[in-house]
């Protein structure tokens, strides 16, 4: 085993997951200006939805993931309708607080239904071990990387090349303005939340097999996702992807060459340093 190569691949794996979560967050946070602290809960629900579809309904892995996308996307849409849409004209502080309320609710709900214990999820890809270039991995890990990249490319194309995608961006910049162009702003907001929830579900669905499913699983991921969104520039899709990988690599290499205990701090220190030097974030646009 070549430690450096192995750690680089580990960074790639974890970076893929980070990027996916951060993407969902950046869509809502950057584009609709809602800092959705409940995004971590969506990720967590995604993990449970996948797992439960497999264990309770006996669905195959990919179908289970698809169900999870629908479930979590649906929850996200409900959030938008019932909560964030109502808070459209409130000061930003209120979105954050409402999101925290949602987070507490979802976490508790899952705990009440399925308990607080750790669960593991195994997939057809969990046990296949592949070795190449001094790296040893399961096919699940390759799946993580490949799936993440495919999803990201698809999303980017959707936003850039389709008018519906552009309407997401337009409406984020001026809701009424978008209305007046014939864009059904409500539908777009719902779509955005759906995509965001779907991304969280995919991230959880591909990551859970190499980790665990439990009610708190979203906490740290979400904190890091916020860091990524800020590092990469709010609302910037490429920024979120890049930021996710930067973080993934710095963690796996940091744990190896600096300190394992403090590897979780890396993300936060990175953010603090970046905002210290550039208070508007790395890719900030000119102020007006």
């Amino acid at each position, binding site marked *: 085993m070549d430690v450096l190569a192995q750690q680089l691949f580990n960074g790639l794996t974890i970076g893929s997951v980070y990027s996916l979560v951060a993407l969902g967050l950046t869509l809502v946070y950057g584009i609709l200006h809602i800092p959705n602290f409940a995004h971590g809960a969506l990720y967590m629900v995604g993990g449970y939805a996948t797992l439960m579809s497999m264990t309770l309904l006996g669905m195959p892995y990919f179908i289970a993931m698809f169900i999870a996308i629908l479930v979590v996307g649906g929850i996200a849409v409900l959030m938008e309708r019932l909560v964030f849409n109502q808070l459209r004209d409130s000061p930003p502080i209120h979105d954050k607080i409402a999101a925290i309320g949602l987070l507490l609710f979802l976490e508790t709900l899952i705990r009440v239904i399925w308990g*607080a214990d750790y669960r593991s999820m195994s997939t057809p890809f969990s046990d296949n071990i592949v070795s190449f270039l001094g790296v040893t991995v399961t096919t699940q890990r390759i799946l993580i990387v490949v799936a993440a990249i495919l999803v990201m490319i698809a999303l980017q194309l959707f936003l850039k090349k389709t008018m519906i995608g552009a309407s997401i961006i337009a409406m984020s910049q001026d809701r009424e303005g978008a209305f007046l162009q014939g864009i059904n702003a409500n539908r777009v907001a719902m779509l955005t939340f759906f995509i965001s929830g779907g991304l969280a579900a995919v991230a959880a669905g591909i990551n859970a097999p190499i980790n665990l499913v439990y009610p708190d699983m979203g906490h740290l991921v979400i904190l890091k996702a916020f860091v990524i969104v800020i590092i990469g520039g709010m609302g910037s899709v490429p920024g979120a992807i890049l930021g996710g990988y930067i973080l993934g690599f710095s963690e796996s290499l940091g744990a190896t060459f600096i300190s394992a205990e403090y590897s979780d701090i890396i993300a936060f220190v990175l953010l603090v340093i970046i905002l210290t030097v550039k208070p508007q974030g790395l890719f900030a646009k000119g102020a007006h």
Partner: protein
Amino acid sequence: GGEDADITEEAEGTPAPGGPDDEGGGEEVEVDTEVAEGTEVIDIGFSGPLSGAGAYYGNNTLNGISMAMEEINEDGGFEVDGETYSFNLVSLDDQYLPDETGANVRRLVQEDDTPFIFVPHSGGTYATQVFNEQDEVLLGSYSSEPEITQQGNDLTWRIPPTYDNYIEPFSEYQMERFGTDLAMLPPNTEFGMDWAEALGPAWEEMGGDVIHESSVDYAQDTDFYTLVTNALADDPDVLFVGGSSEPTAQVMSQARELGFEGGFLVMDQAKLDEIDNVLGGAPDVIEGSVGVAPLVDDIHEGNEQFVSDYQEMHDADPGSEAGYHYYSVYILAEAMKAAGETEDAHAIREHLDEGLHQVDEDKRIYDVSGIDEDGGMTTELRMAVVEDGEVELVDFDH
């Protein structure tokens, strides 16, 4: 030698292990302490995590307590100084937060006038020890932290055994079987830290080398591969792991994926059979592991009935936290009998050891040899090893 060997565990801050089919932590435990007619009632308090991340663990402890109380009450209670008494459990939720425990204990003392309170975590114990002597309430603390009995608090009873007993035999076995290079990858819980601090020096004293030392945070590390890769980088013979069974299983199987062929020294919180379960039957993963014998693998006269009753009631195997709490209730009742007193915490405390030895044979879940001066309970232990895919129990003095 001791015939009862089982898990001791302290799940500070992390949910305790349990199979996927275990009862959910959120389900409220029905404490059906229907009091026997014509008896006096003794309120017994409990403050533990019944919601939040620790709810699963807290409810398991509660299961043990309420099972014992129900049995006692159904039998018509117990007699102290000519009067018949039965137990009533008043349980409060503290979400693992020490200040909440403090509030709960004060409430239990004020509103229910309890002589005895179970607190299944050290933070809560510490917060309560500040005033429990003054308020004359006896703490039954399920925490392996030595400090809680070393502080000189006269009204504390430490229920779980200390883990130091395991360290030497585990190390000896693994050194002999796999070699002397040890990599340590414990969970960064209080219990994991304690273990690592005791194991490291002991291993080196026995002539081994600790070649890697770090810890995993199950609740926060997104991926264990990075840490496992580093732990394996220097080619250890033995890997020290542990914590709740599921994440431990995850770490162990990932170590195998990454080509580790040595043995696992498993901290006593995780159970080998559960790990095997979690992995869906993976004999090559757990081969060469040494750990604590799970309660269900160590059935004897003292716990047979309990284990089967528990399985029937909760559709799950009892963990040590349930077993110890169950046992404790019986010890408590006997201690009250011996003291001839149901209210005086000091008197009860003084008669705990006596009570322990009065408990019926078929309620002695573990082989406990006594309760010390300082309130610590001493359990005789055994270990479980995996040889050729089979879990085997080994006495320490083999």
